[in-house]
């Protein structure tokens, strides 16, 4: 009950803060609103289609398919599959959260879902091309080469640390 009230309270606080800023520095307040608007538009163009896809996944893909591809017993194939699915991702990390949660519900292992999340966050083909263009192939290449083992390590540490206490709960 308390949790449900948290977001509206924050929203109200932000509104008050924005009005306050407007009176002391109108330009700043408008800058806040305009960049928020840009992010909001981005989110509106990405989130609904992703949620529709998740909805379809929930309904159509049987649990054992995901369990087999990304479950506890999927081994190296599961890791590779998670890597692949992560790179296919579009949009910001927050779009990956509901997908990851859905995969967990369908029986994917925590290890593989962590890999999926981290890969989604950091490895995307268009992003890599962008990085090469602006930061150079050396920089982008080395960062990529270091990121992949790091992701595996992060997933391993996380899985080891949380395994015992981990129970996936709805909401």
């Amino acid at each position, binding site marked *: 009950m308390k949790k449900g009230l948290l*977001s509206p309270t*924050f*929203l109200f606080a*932000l509104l008050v*803060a*924005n009005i306050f800023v407007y009176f002391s520095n109108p330009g*700043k307040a408008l*800058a*806040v609103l305009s*960049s*928020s*608007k840009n*992010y*909001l538009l981005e*989110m509106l163009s990405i*989130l*609904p*289609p992703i*949620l*529709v*896809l*998740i*909805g*379809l996944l*929930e*309904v*159509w893909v049987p649990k054992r398919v995901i369990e087999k591809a990304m479950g506890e017993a999927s081994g190296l194939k599961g890791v590779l599959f998670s890597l692949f699915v992560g790179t296919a991702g579009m949009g*910001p*990390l*927050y779009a990956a*959260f*509901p997908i*990851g*949660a859905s995969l*967990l519900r369908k029986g994917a292992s925590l290890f593989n879902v962590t890999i999926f*999340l*981290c890969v989604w*966050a*950091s490895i995307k083909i268009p992003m890599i091309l*962008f*990085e090469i*263009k*602006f*930061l*150079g192939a*050396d*920089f982008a290449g*080395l*960062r990529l080469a*270091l*990121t992949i083992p790091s992701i595996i*390590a*992060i997933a391993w*540490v*996380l899985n080891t*640390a*949380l395994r015992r*206490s*981990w129970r996936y*709960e709805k909401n």
Partner: protein
Amino acid sequence: MAAAFFLFFSWAKDKKKTLASLKFAWKSFRSMALLVVVIIWVIGFLLAFLPPQIISKTIGPEAGFKGVILAALFGSIVLIQAFIAFPLAGSFLRQGANISAIAAFVTTLVMVGVVTAPLEAKFFGKKFTFWRNSISFVFALLIAYIMGVVLR
């Protein structure tokens, strides 16, 4: 587009199932929407009050070890799209910024999300969120250090 395609397919095959999936999508949208608006608004504030000039001063050429840590912290907190972040980082690099600092900034930018943590916690729990972000932060520093050594 892919979503529309699959939706069409699904509709043709089974209307009831399609409705169920749309209902699911709508329910998750409703449960996320408010929090997402809050997060986006916070990002708006961050971007307005932490303009690139301040970031560039902190992770500029004179920044040492402290600069790397600060760069990693900046990257963790702000949320910038790649098509803005990479040109920005590139311009820092050309101005002579520390390679480790840039690597730390870019890596935490994509991997660590303090602002989006409430949303992450909603889906995966607080513990998972805390650990995923802090472990990623440590690894980002490690990546940054190695890159600084190799690309000097």
